[in-house]
């Protein structure tokens, strides 16, 4: 049985830089992740080590850091396609590591051209660094229903207060990118020492992202805050990274299913020759292809001269679609593989848990409402 899964990106999205990087990531995956994947959720040091190699040795952490500071200095013109390819490869290996990197990269990109970028570049060049995104959120009752951290200007400084749960890495981030209500929606960058952390939370998947509730109580320089549309840029790039990550995840589920299906017989025939099973297989593939198409489209329009709002809105659609597809691919593949999909050793269940975690963290209902607000200009919530 032969399964053709390759579906090369459209020509405008191919670049030598992207390919080179994808190759390094592929090698990293083969060496640092693939052999240990069945244990990665139980032995946290595996993910820690792999993450460190990816961030530092391959240098993904410094992807946008200027060459002068030891980074790769990828420019805006190359970024989208580089992210598309890189995160797809990471998604085939470990979505959790990719998730942590998504936050770091989108936060750094959102600061490009500002003083925050200099600060981040220094931090990112100095050694392993993780950035946690502290997004608008629904809160506990003591949080009185404010969705953004509170920012108040006091002289030259800004006082920042907030309590809640970061998107990622709350437990071990070095920097927090905090969504706050400072002249609209802004993003403040806060060092970890100003953040009080609760116990680490056990969660469904994405083991590389160690999270917890945090209390932010900081006084920061005004230069540490990004106003205007920076938060949208952050989300747009985050959505791109996550979309690509999910494409990789969906492809990995296809591959796992293929490897299993090749050996499988049902009612005396190869599995794929039973039409009911073939129909499920087709749906698994279809999800992966659709996700790949949508992620490419997002990448492509990010390279074009378009209205930021339009790109942002489409990035929301793309992230939702790709995370849906990644989950559906894994879920339906598991339907066929049954206990062998559900067992840890089979790897599929890891993709299934990770994909579901990303989908849940995207908080689809909230994003959809935002989308509606965006398109209808209506006042929601």
């Amino acid at each position: 049985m032969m399964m053709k899964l390759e579906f090369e990106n459209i020509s405008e999205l191919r670049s030598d830089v992207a390919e080179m990087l994808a190759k390094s990531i592929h090698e990293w995956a083969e060496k640092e992740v693939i052999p240990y994947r069945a244990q990665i959720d139980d032995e946290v040091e595996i993910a820690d080590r792999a993450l460190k190699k990816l961030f530092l040795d391959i240098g993904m952490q410094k992807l946008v850091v200027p060459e002068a500071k030891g980074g790769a200095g990828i420019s805006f013109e190359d970024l989208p396609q580089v992210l598309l390819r890189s995160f797809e490869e990471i998604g085939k290996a470990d979505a959790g590591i990719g998730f942590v990197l998504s936050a770091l990269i989108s936060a750094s990109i959102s600061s490009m051209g500002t003083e925050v970028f200099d600060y981040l570049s220094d931090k990112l060049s100095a050694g392993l660094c993780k950035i946690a995104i502290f997004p608008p959120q629904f809160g506990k009752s003591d949080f009185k229903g404010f969705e953004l951290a509170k920012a108040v200007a006091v002289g030259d400084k800004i006082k920042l207060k907030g309590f809640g749960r970061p998107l990622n890495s709350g437990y071990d981030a070095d920097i927090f990118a905090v969504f706050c209500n400072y002249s609209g929606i802004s993003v403040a960058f806060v060092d970890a020492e100003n953040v009080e952390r609760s116990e680490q939370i056990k969660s469904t998947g994405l083991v590389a992202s160690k999270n917890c509730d945090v209390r932010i109580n900081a006084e920061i320089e005004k230069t540490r805050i990004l106003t205007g549309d920076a938060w949208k840029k952050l989300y747009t790039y985050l959505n791109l990274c996550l979309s690509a990550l999910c494409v990789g995840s969906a492809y990995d589920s296809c591959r796992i299913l293929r490897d299993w299906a090749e050996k499988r017989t049902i009612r005396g025939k190869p599995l794929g020759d039973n039409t009911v099973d073939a129909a499920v297989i087709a749906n698994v593939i279809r999800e992966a292809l659709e996700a790949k198409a949508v992620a490419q489209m997002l990448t492509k329009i990010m390279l074009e001269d378009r209205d930021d709002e339009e790109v942002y809105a489409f990035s929301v659609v793309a992230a939702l679609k790709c995370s849906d597809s990644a989950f559906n691919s894994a879920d339906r593949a598991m339907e066929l593989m049954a206990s062998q999909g559900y067992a840890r050793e089979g790897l599929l269940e890891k993709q299934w848990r990770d994909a579901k975690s990303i989908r849940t963290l995207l908080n689809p209902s909230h994003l959809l409402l935002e989308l509606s607000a965006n398109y209808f200009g209506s006042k929601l919530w």
Partner: protein
Amino acid sequence: MEFARIREFESPLERYMAEIIRDWGEKYVIPHRRNFDEDWKEHRTIEPALEKLMVDYGIQTAVWPEEFGGWGLGSSDYFGSICARVMEEIGRYDTGIAVSVGVTLWPIFVIAVKPHINYDLCAEFAPLFMRKKLTMAANAMTEPQGGSDIENLDELKGKTIRTTAKLDGDEWVINGHKLWPTNSGGVADLFGVVCTTNPGVPDEKNFAYIYVPADLPGVKQGEPYRKAGMAADKNSDIWFENVRVPKRYRAWGEGLDAKYFRIIISTGCLGSAGMALGAMENIYEILFEKCSELRYRGRPLKENTAVAAVLADIAAEIEICRSAVYTYARMLDRPDYYGDRFSAEMIARGRALKLKVCDACCRVAERAMDLLGHYGIDRNYDVEKHWRDVKIIQLWMGGRQLCQMDVARYFYDCKQL
């Protein structure tokens, strides 16, 4: 909140069992539930909970006839309803424990449920379960090649079974390899083993259901598998190497084994649907609490209409599923009215029920996680545990596809599936 069902058929025994399970669940499961995942191999907190329920509350004796010290559930006119309720109530706390309990009762159904009660075998095995000691059973069915194909009796007539039983004098000699039964991995004391007396020949006469005590020479069990969830349910390999049991350990004999074995399918579907229902109800309870507590822009989460819509879909799904579970349970209660529990009709209806209720349960768990956003993946909110757990209920017993084929065969008179 009690979801929809016909309450007229709730028997006193059912109500009593529901009460003790609620009491047990709050005391022995809830305090430890968040650590079950780490306890998947050792069962340090899971086993005491099981022991309480099975031994102290006596559930492990429930099915056996009264004359052997059991509760005689197998002769009750409320057999189906009670089975469903027990699985529902345990499932509310932990579907892993539910299946572990259910599978202990399961193989006994073949010999201790009206109208097919094998008093000799009851006399033989009941005492094991009357001990004041946790005693479990397992149904050794699935094999490495072909998975749950074995359950596909109507189509394959046992043709693909590779575990063999050969009569040698007054003893069966059993050889084979079974995979993934609940309560394997060292848990079960007694196996009900699906084997063939004539491998490769599609004839129900060759289908043999033989009881094998787990401590016999030649029975070897592997280490439990690590899974996405369902920590309380240990699954492993079992190898039978020239295991010898007395001839009378075969449940009924040629043809009848296959016939009465089918009660395993109908009750297995009911039990699966029942525990999935319990899990959904617990998810509902958690959502009710958390969506009242969590706030978004000044309001409890549940007071936002978009959230309320999803919450409503979930409640409505449970209403429908509970109606269906107890309708089917009632149909199993009264074979005189609805047909034998091992009939093709009741099996097909059971498959239909399992198919839909499991689909609903997985979807409910998914949507509940999505609603809770970053709390959805938090193990302290318990929803994600149910989500991981219940997926395997959908997958076991042949998964969706086998259910679909059985349903199509009966409802559309298909002959060549």
